[in-house]
């Protein structure tokens, strides 16, 4: 159990980092966010140049057959460059599910992910769920050859530009969850699109008797898969957060070394020095938790879920601390829209709101301990 990255993981980290620094920056991100074509361009770049869209998939489908630690490495790099979407929903969340579904449709979907022709949004969160994606309420009814899907899903990240949606529903009378793979242009599917504070696009989604064929049904016992995908998403978000935090601290250190007040750089004031030390400590603890949850993803579901709750709780706390202090140490300029800093800050905030606050994850952790004890 050596916890250092191995050679291939280092190569992966460096190649993703280099690709992003050559092909992506703050200005381009801002310009691209008003253009709904942008994520597809970036995804095609990932497919054609560094192959990371195939990261978790088996070689026989054209994937790289990599594990959770490799995903962690990629997500941290994406976080550092602030380009997590739609890699997270498509490769991590949908990928986790599709990999475990042994149908031709799923295999086709994986191939489409790998060659960047499919960009997938996750639609199994529900109104009021606030970070808990497993609260599935939409409905599916059999219509002979296939199904009608009805329901809605709020704040569907990446929904506006997704080619496909993974829709969670309650099936028939037994109330079990099912998962459907639905083309985004299916009749009856409407989207109200909007921007999130971190600049990403999202939508509120309504399905009104959307007809899908029989093979759109990925599984009629989706709960375990949804739980697994949620934990994989959490682990990835943890890694992304670490990447963001490292950048926030690096920018803060750089700024305080340059900015003079009272005749010396801000970085020479002891109070600010100690604040940056505290930020560093938080980041290191966060990085440890991101690694921990990546390694625990392959444990039993209760253990995995508990690890994900712990990591989200601890990293969420670290993220707030680091982000708020990065702004504070920048002073007035930190509160503006002028620096990349503000985008990183808002991304940390969005993660908290979309994926659940530290408080919520501590509650989940407590519940998992109680469950475990019973």
């Amino acid at each position: 159990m050596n916890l250092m990255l191995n050679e291939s993981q280092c190569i992966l980290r460096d190649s993703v980092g280099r690709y992003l620094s050559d092909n992506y920056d703050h200005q381009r991100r801002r310009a691209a966010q008003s253009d709904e074509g942008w994520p597809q361009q970036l995804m095609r770049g990932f497919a054609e140049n560094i192959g990371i869209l195939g990261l978790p998939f088996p070689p026989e489908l054209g994937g790289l057959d990599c594990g959770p630690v490799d995903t962690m490495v990629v997500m941290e790099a994406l976080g550092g460059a602030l380009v997590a979407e739609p890699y997270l929903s498509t490769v991590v969340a949908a990928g986790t599910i599709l990999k475990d579904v042994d149908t031709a449709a799923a295999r086709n979907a994986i191939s489409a992910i790998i060659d960047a022709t499919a960009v997938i949004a996750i639609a199994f969160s529900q109104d009021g769920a606030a970070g808990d994606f497993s609260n599935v309420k939409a409905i599916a009814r059999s219509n002979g050859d296939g199904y009608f899907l009805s329901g809605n899903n709020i704040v569907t990240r990446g929904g506006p530009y997704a080619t496909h949606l993974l829709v969670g529903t309650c099936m028939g009378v037994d109330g079990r969850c099912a998962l459907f793979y639905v083309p985004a242009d299916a009749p009856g599917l409407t989207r109200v699109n909007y921007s999130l504070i971190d600049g990403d696009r999202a939508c509120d989604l309504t399905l009104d008797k959307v007809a899908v064929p029989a093979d759109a049904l990925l599984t009629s016992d989706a709960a375990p898969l949804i739980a697994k995908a949620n934990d994989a998403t959490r682990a990835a978000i943890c890694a992304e957060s670490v990447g963001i935090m490292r950048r926030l601290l690096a920018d803060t250190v750089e700024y305080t070394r340059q900015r003079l007040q009272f005749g010396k750089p801000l970085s020479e004031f002891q109070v600010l020095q100690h604040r940056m030390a505290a930020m560093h400590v938080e980041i290191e603890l966060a990085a440890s938790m991101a690694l921990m949850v990546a390694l625990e993803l392959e444990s039993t579901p209760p253990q995995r879920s508990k690890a994900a709750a712990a990591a989200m709780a601890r990293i969420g706390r670290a993220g707030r601390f680091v982000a708020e202090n990065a702004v504070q140490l920048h002073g007035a300029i930190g509160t503006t829209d002028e620096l990349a800093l503000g985008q990183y800050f808002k991304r940390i905030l969005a993660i908290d709101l979309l994926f659940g606050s530290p408080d919520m994850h501590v509650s989940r952790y407590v519940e998992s301990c109680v469950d475990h004890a019973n």
Partner: protein
Amino acid sequence: MRIKDLEAFRAEVRAFLDENLTPELRDAAALQAGVYSEGDVCRSWHQTLYQKGWVAPSWPEKYGGPGWTPIQRMIFESECAAAGAPILPGMSILMCGPVLIRFGTEEQKSFFLPRILSGEHFWCQGYSEPQAGSDLASLRCAAVRDGDDYVINGTKIWTTHAHYANWIFMLVRTSTEGRRQDGISFVLAPMDTPGITITPILSMSGEHEVNQLFFDDVRIPMSNRVGDENEGFKIAKYLLEFERGGGDAGMQVSLVLKWLDEALVQAEAQGFKLRDSSYLTKRAEIEIDLLALTWTQRRIVSELETGQSVGDVSASLLKLTASDLYQHATELALATLGPYGAVDQRVALGEDEGLIGPRYGAVFGARYLNGRAQSIFGGTSEIQHTIIARSVIGR
């Protein structure tokens, strides 16, 4: 003043607010952060208060104040907060007015004070510069004498509402000799003076509240200087205390609590579960902290005579505590929205979709983001600690 009289006064304020605070004004105030134009709402409410004679609670009666005691002012402010009244920007009434009353000439007072009261003059404040933030004494924007005029060259930054204001009070360097803070003067300039240009700065929430100003051979008469030449830093410090100790910090927090309580009702109607113990505990902690802040303000106010500033340590203490509390309160408010908290409502309202998610949360995101500036503008929390430490440790 006896308790009975104070209660009568409170009733009078309530009646006035009931009558004059229209639902439109209340709504506008609640949605104020970047959704409606601050200018219109404020002008309207300013006029209403002006007609009643209540627009400048802290001013002496002879200059148009209502002649209230500090306790009456506090009652007025808390009733305004409870009713959800718009909060007027402090630059005119709370900052420029008291400076003129204390340091202005008779001519300056008789010219400016009535115009501040009537709302004819809207002020902004020119203090910070790109290289002079926390370290205000290092400012460089220079005013050079030329006949009976000053000619101003330089820049000011973080100027709130400069795009609404028609006057600016500002600090300029009139000497480079001696200690840095000894060469600074306090001057007034009309915003339409040739040579002043305004560049907007967008905040993290995407709103336009602050600006950078450029001064290019801007000529003002020397009679627009307040106080003696090179004595401006004294006035600046007096004003910073007003800014820090000013009454609206606690008021803003109580507004947030008010919104939270309205949000609670609406959120539950929409299926959000807020009334769990973690939410209730956090809300209670904020309310308790607000109580501590309010009573500290009361203790300090009751040591004051009318019009006096609160002293730098007390001012710093209030500023620090209020900004911290405001940040916690807006954080909790935002959390009540769950995933809808992550929506950029400013963009949504600017596009076709209109407001996304529950109406009660329309400005929670912007308030939280703008709230980050509370611990920075008017002196960072770090500077406030330094000011307090100087007094606590003694030298």
